[in-house]
């Protein structure tokens, strides 16, 4: 089965010789459309490296990364940048919203960089803000919004247009538990609508939103879980 994202025996080594750090050591992972995969593991296990490679922000030292069947390694820098803007959405812990732009301008920016006209970009950006329930904040600047609203704007920016792959690195950041849950709900909805999603998190409760959870340890995938159907077996011990 081919996925929206495919990692084939991916290695990433920083440095060389005795000082070499092996961040990833032969990771293979396929994420299909409509599938959300959570990546868990202790600090330094390679989670963020995996996400950076998946998003074309970093290049593997071995193996291949494919997005919608296209091998990122073979693309010239310009093409890679274009693919990143068009097909991949990123949500990071630190929101990276530009303080001098309003919410709608922040969301429209990647489209405009990609050649979409200003009006069309604004229209698409407003639609994306509506999708995450912050259309009312469209003309506000980031510092005029709550943390939860800012994160929704950041998500709208990641989802705007035709992005088929959404990559999220601890996207709930410092949000309270309700606001954090709302963010995951949005991510889940986008994936259910056909995107492929990768969620890096150290919180099991957040990973619970995924269809599949993979554990990284020292740069190696050590386990993968998919939910079992039916919870009756979990509750058999509760009749006391």
């Amino acid at each position, binding site marked *: 089965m081919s996925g929206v994202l495919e990692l084939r025996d991916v290695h990433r080594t920083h440095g060389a010789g005795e000082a070499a750090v092996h961040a990833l050591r032969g990771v293979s992972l396929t994420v299909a459309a409509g599938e959300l995969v959570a990546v868990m593991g*202790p600090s330094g296990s390679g989670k963020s490296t995996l996400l950076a490679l998946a998003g074309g922000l970093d290049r593997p030292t071995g193996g291949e990364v494919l997005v919608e069947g296209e091998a990122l390694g073979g693309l010239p820098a310009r093409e890679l940048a274009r693919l990143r803007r068009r097909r991949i959405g990123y949500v990071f812990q630190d929101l990276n919203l530009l303080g001098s732009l309003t919410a709608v301008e922040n969301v429209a920016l990647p489209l405009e960089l990609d050649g979409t006209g200003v009006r069309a970009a604004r229209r698409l950006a407003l639609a994306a803000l509506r999708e995450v329930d912050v259309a009312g904040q469209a003309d506000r600047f980031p510092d005029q919004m709550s943390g939860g609203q800012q994160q929704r704007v950041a998500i709208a920016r990641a989802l705007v247009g035709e992005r088929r792959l959404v990559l999220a690195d601890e996207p709930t950041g410092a949000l309270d538990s309700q606001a954090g849950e709302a963010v995951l*709900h949005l991510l*889940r909805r986008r994936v259910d609508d056909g995107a492929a999603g990768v969620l890096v998190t150290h*919180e*099991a*409760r957040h*990973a*619970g*939103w*995924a*269809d599949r*959870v993979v*554990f990284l340890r020292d740069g190696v995938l*050590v*386990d993968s*879980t*998919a*939910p*079992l*159907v*039916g*919870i*009756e077996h*979990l*509750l058999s011990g*509760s*009749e*006391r």
Partner: protein
Amino acid sequence: MSIRHGLLALLERGQMYGYQLRAAFEESTGSTWPLNIGQVYTTLARLERDGLVRPLPENESGQRPYEITDAGRADLALWFATPISRADRPRDELSIKLALALTTPGVDVRTVVQTQRSATMRALQEFTRLKYTSDKPEDLPWRLVLDAMIFQAEAEVRWLDHCETSLVRHRPTAGRPVAHPEAVDRAGDEARR
């Protein structure tokens, strides 16, 4: 929790017979706690013996409703007012299992940790899926029950992560008999040599 207080709480809403109580009980716990009708009748009999509920005359369909008594109401109020003691909960088999795995020869503790974490993670995914699909306002009691299970599962995964980190730093002593004070002294002497 006791089925006893669950049934008292339901009867506080109004009189009910056995099958109604079972259905209402399962509904309010989102069917996470299935009851068989035998448990309902046994519990009702004990509640009646203790004067906390009172049977009413059978209806025309042959069903006997029960109602809560004043003593039952007092018992229920006390239950709501009293925090649940941790000591009343069952012993945690998992922590005991891991403690024993550490000291039992031939057991790979890391595998035990990983196996449990996968299972708990699966449960967490399933609870979350159920919560995600129960978003109607009237689902709130059920969602809160699910949240409780989600937080418990999360705590277990965190604890397992903690165990794994501790194991990395741990120098294995598996299989060694429980240290006798003299043995400790000897080991200390050897270490100093």
